[in-house]
């Protein structure tokens, strides 16, 4: 039923994991072979030309990030794969790793070569024990045949990969706290500059990329940049993207879809429409930190720039849909509670500001709020946004700000009625 070209999910079958022989048969490790015939700089150039943007949430162009990396610098350098994936509504990396983990291994081998790193870490969240085992097995398979380890493919280049299992906490998805986490220090974020590419893991140059980003890389090497660009429906964009659907949908599943597909198509054709025949009220287009879209936005393209034009973000492309009976104050309250709880506690706006917002949203939701609380909510958002140490609190403000922008009437309704107008539902 998914007529779009499948790249990352091409081998995906339910409840099964692709092992090395099948992966190779489907063209696996051709990208790595192709890369080893190029110079590292050429690989970086190719990725730059492909238009691949990071799939971890921020959408930074991967090739540009790689070209900033001091690949020539002697001494230890590291590659880190970010598989923390703890933002609510996001579960695509898990689907990818469960289905076909060799894509990541191959991508990391290529990236290691392009960036001339010797050691790679795959950082996996605690709940992904299932992925942990599959990735470890894939690494063993790859080491056995020489895609990893010493002198890969007879090139004289070594790649060593380790899997690190985390122990909870969303902040570890932020790349610099992830580095502290890997080092076994308290995982507070680090200040940037210096950027990880200058001073990262153990103080050495380090490149961090998302699972999906790295898994996409081999396909670009195998099929070329033109092919990759043509995958997207938006001519300005490139590639497919994993969309994890959730919430009030008939089919809350994970799909590989071209960038530039409309929200309507995602919700109606792939998500099977809002369940119970209800109307679409709003959605998070890309995880818990992305500002809401409403029915007015159904025809917007699901892609980096088009979503920014409507004051939201593609984020991780985890689309969570809410039906017409959902209280958006309650949704925001739930989201903010998550961020407040997952704050690392390093900086004041996030540590104490998010808790204050939680308190305000509680008051509004439970009908105890006054117009002063609404005013206070607004000044809290203004002073947290862009003022925190890392992007966690910034992300937390996405939904709150959208609530104020799109659903202020609903807040006022709560205040006027002294209770949640949706409470009876």
């Amino acid at each position, binding site marked *: 039923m998914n007529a779009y070209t499948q790249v990352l999910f091409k081998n995906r079958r339910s409840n099964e994991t692709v092992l090395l022989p099948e992966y190779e048969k489907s063209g696996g490790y051709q990208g790595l072979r192709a890369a080893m015939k190029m110079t590292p700089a050429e690989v970086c150039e190719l990725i730059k030309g492909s238009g691949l943007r990071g799939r971890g949430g921020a959408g930074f162009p991967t090739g540009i990030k790689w070209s900033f990396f001091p690949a020539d610098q002697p001494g230890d350098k590291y590659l880190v794969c970010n598989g923390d994936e*703890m933002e*609510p*509504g*996001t579960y695509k990396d*898990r689907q990818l790793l469960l289905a076909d983990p060799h894509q990541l291994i191959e991508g990391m081998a290529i990236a290691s070569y392009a960036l001339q790193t010797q050691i790679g870490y795959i950082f996996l969240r605690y709940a992904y024990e299932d992925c942990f085992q599959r990735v470890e097995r894939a690494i063993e398979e790859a080491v056995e045949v020489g895609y990893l380890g010493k002198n890969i493919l007879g090139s004289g280049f070594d790649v060593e990969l380790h899997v690190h299992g*985390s122990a*909870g906490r969303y902040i570890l998805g932020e790349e610099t706290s992830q580095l502290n986490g*890997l080092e076994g220090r308290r*995982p507070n974020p680090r200040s940037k500059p210096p950027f990880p590419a200058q001073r990262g893991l153990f103080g050495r140059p380090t490149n961090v990329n998302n699972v999906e980003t790295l898994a996409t890389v081999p396909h670009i090497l195998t099929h070329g940049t033109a092919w990759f660009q043509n995958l997207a429906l938006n001519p300005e964009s490139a590639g497919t993207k994993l969309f994890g659907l959730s919430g009030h949908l008939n089919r809350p599943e994970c799909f590989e879809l071209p960038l530039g597909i409309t929200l309507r198509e995602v919700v109606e054709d792939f998500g099977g429409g809002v369940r119970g025949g209800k109307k679409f009220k709003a959605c998070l287009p890309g995880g818990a930190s992305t500002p809401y879209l409403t029915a007015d936005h159904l025809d917007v393209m699901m892609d980096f720039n088009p979503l920014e034009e409507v004051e939201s973000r593609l984020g991780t492309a985890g689309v969570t849909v809410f039906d017409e009976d959902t209280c958006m104050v309650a949704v925001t309250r739930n989201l903010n509670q998550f961020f407040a709880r*997952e704050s690392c506690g390093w900086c004041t706006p996030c540590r104490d500001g998010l808790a204050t917002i939680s308190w305000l949203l509680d008051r509004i939701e439970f009908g105890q709020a006054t117009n002063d609380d609404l005013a206070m909510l607004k000044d809290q958002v203004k002073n947290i946004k862009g003022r925190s140490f890392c992007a966690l609190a910034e992300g937390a403000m996405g939904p709150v700000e959208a609530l104020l922008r799109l659903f202020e009437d609903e807040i006022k309704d709560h205040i006027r009625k002294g209770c949640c107008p949706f409470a009876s539902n």
Partner: protein
Amino acid sequence: MTEFLPQNQIDSFKAKAAAIAHPHEMIVDLLRAIQLHHGWVPDDGVLLTAATLGVLPIEVEEVATFYDKIFRREVGKRVIHVCDSICCWATGAEMITEHLKKALGIGLGETTTDGIFTLLPTCCLGACGDAPAMMIGFTTHGLLTTEKIDDILQKERAAVAAEIFA
């Protein structure tokens, strides 16, 4: 202190720590190993980690208390992490949690008197497509209904009983 981790594992951690430049990087691994073996990490588990890796106890504790999936207090034989993040919330997590509380006769953060279950809320488990979801040990259970929960609890109880008599 060896009862927190089999000696051979301690030895292998020790050997690895001695071979690498930054033994701190194994703190989380070792805490997880102790928890897997012992169910949770008591004070002596922190000291064991510090001694095995040659780091300070305070450094281990600073890390251990940061993570929510390292238990520094005693928990039941099965820890139920019930997700309360947005996708599960939208699909009935509050009802699911209420049901769990009733079925177990405990509140969030508590352990059943028989010491079998501890009920903890958790943020998103990465099972958003299968919401509502919960995780017991490392196993994620999705698309929860009250019947399904009753069934899972019964199986877990039986499994614990089997472990005890084994």
